[in-house]
């Protein structure tokens, strides 16, 4: 991190880009994109697109608003580690859920929760 503050133009451009991307997200949600079955999960391209745009927005916030570009090396390592840890948690957990045959018989069914003694 340095003591040199960024020019206001950088912040205003980031702000404008975030607004435009928000508008694109809203517009993209109105489209009907294909859904691709993958195992017991369905890959919905609408979600993939929405999350891709959200990731771009998040990157803009981290790069310019959170001064990633001017940060020290160790802070950068932690910022990247946050994403890395998150991905480990997501992939290991989702991989586990994907590969459990018993999973479909646990939880809610059409008629209500399994093993539930509700009247």
């Amino acid at each position: 991190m340095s003591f040199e503050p960024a020019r206001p133009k950088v912040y205003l451009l980031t702000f404008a880009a975030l607004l435009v991307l928000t508008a694109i997200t809203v517009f993209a949600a109105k489209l009907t994109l294909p859904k691709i079955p993958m195992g017991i999960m369905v890959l919905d391209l609408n979600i993939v697109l929405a999350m891709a745009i959200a990731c771009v927005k998040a990157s803009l916030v981290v790069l310019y608003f959170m001064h990633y570009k001017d940060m020290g090396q160790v802070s950068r390592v932690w910022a990247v580690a946050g994403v890395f840890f998150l991905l480990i948690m997501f992939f290991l957990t989702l991989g586990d859920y994907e590969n459990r045959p018993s999973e479909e018989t646990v939880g809610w069914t059409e008629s209500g929760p399994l093993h539930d003694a509700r009247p």
Partner: protein
Amino acid sequence: MSTHEGDMYVGHQFEDAEQQLDSYSIGMWLFLVTEVLFFGGLFLAYIIYRTRYTQAFVAAHHELDWRLGGLNTVILITSSLTMALAVRAAVLNRMKAVLGWLGLTLLCASGFMVVKYVEYSAKFEHHLFPGPKFEFQHAGVDSGQAQMFFNLYFAMTGLHGAHVLIGMITMMVLAIRLWLMRKQRVDFIPIELTGLYWHFVDLVWIFLFPLFYLVGGN
């Protein structure tokens, strides 16, 4: 004893101003990593339930007004801009500007909470808060599965709202401190760190907005 390097206040435990700034920045980022994982667990729960109860989630999400969610997105992005400008003003030691930008950020944050209040009260009125009074009727949709959508909605936006409140309290304390010490040079580190926290709050909402208000609306 503490020293001054240029205009910067440097604590006695630090070599120089740059090391001091780096140390504070590392600590804040470390905290933000724990926050990422904190919210990450909830996002993971959302992904798992959404892939299983897709129909119910799509039906239930129509109860949320994307225009209010979008309004809150714009409000939070604006508040991130004003916060970034507050930090910039603090680095440049422009006291009045810092207080002005912080005030605007607080205004945006309050606006966000007001919109949230309107949304939450509508959900309570329509019996969409999970619990014994929960009621959701939609052809071919299990009400228990729809309830899971609202469980996640209230847990995730509620936790996010709590972060907004904590951010607001921090900004108010900062503003009061700045006002009391207005005769001295501004120490911009507390403002920079509050800024990092605030941008993180904005970042979480960037993901919450499409997941709860938009996705699968067809």
